[in-house]
């Protein structure tokens, strides 16, 4: 029964979570736990690393080895961890503010190196923990605490960003489709190389309230018309795709070498040169 997943993987003494009612982070965390459970991976070989923000609080509720690090530096810590022990399975839990703005450079350089990390970004379009300021993924025209006349900055498409930076697995999931999210996260976990999953979620108590989007249930129903699968998006024009969120798998390739493998090869070469 599914109840076992919760008692098995959650730190029960820390529950309930500090997230606001209806926060999408819990749905993403639930999907991650189901994905990890289905893969039957060795629990001692999995490490969760997170930065700062609502999404990064997720590691506090997990009964795994976890690191809660500086703002934006989750990927930097994770890179060090992975280099120290390439057998570890390092999963980075981060938010849109954490990984796209302050940690933006770490994200693109991890993608460039194609190091074997799984980066899961809980994208709720604003900085929730600090009171709802606009983030690099806030849609144009949205009200936030720091854009009271509507945000006028064009948002990042994190999937396109990571794809062009060189990530070898890129997907977008949404909290409206939790089972599909679980499947995409499962594939990301199995991928050898940098895998990035952008999880579109909601922040009902700040973003939803300031934009008058209704309660958590109504915000969830809004996704129904906005989500378009990547297969369907190919048949639609740019005009029809305006204001839509394309979800699915964008990149899944193994044509680039993984960073730890290249590093091990270089060490072997150096040793050979020293001995020869």
């Amino acid at each position, binding site marked *: *029964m*599914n*109840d076992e997943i*919760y008692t098995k993987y*959650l730190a029960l003494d820390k*529950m*309930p*979570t500090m*997230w*606001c*009612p*209806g*926060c*999408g*982070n*819990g*749905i993403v965390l*639930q999907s991650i736990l189901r994905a990890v459970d289905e893969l039957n991976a060795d629990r001692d070989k999995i490490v969760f690393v997170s930065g700062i923000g609502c999404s990064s609080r997720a590691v506090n509720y997990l009964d795994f080895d976890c690191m809660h690090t500086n703002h934006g530096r989750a990927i930097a810590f994770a890179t060090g961890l992975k280099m120290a022990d390439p057998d570890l399975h390092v999963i980075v839990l981060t938010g849109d503010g954490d990984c796209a703005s302050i940690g933006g450079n770490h994200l693109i350089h991890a993608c460039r190196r194609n190091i074997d990390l799984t980066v899961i970004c809980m994208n709720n379009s604003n900085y929730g923990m600090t009171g709802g300021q606009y983030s690099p993924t806030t849609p144009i025209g949205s009200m936030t605490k720091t854009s009271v006349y509507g945000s006028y900055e064009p948002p990042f498409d994190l999937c396109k960003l990571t794809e062009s930076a060189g990530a070898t697995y890129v997907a977008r999931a949404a*909290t409206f489709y*939790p*089972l599909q999210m679980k499947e995409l996260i499962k594939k990301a976990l199995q991928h050898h190389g940098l895998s990035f999953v952008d999880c579109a979620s909601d922040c*009902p108590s700040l973003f939803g309230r300031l934009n008058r989007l209704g*309660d*958590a*249930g*109504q915000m*969830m*129903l809004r996704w129904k018309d906005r989500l378009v699968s990547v297969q369907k998006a190919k048949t639609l024009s740019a005009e029809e795709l305006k204001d839509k969120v394309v979800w699915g798998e964008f990149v899944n390739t193994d044509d680039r070498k993984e960073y730890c493998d290249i590093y091990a090869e270089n060490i072997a070469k150096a040793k050979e040169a020293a001995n020869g």
Partner: protein
Amino acid sequence: MRKIQINTHWCKGCGICVTLCPKGVLTLEQETVKAEKEEACIGCRQCEYHCPDFAIVIGEDENG
């Protein structure tokens, strides 16, 4: 009939499950969700998968 287990200590009453339930099984009572028509549950588990607080678990059908 399916057993609907609700952890009232973890539920924050966000109402996502109430909105998504296709059979109107769940209702909100004093900011906590309650299974009012448990016998109508068809076991789609939309409430369970969408619960951000890990508060709902739908059991297997006891009649098979």
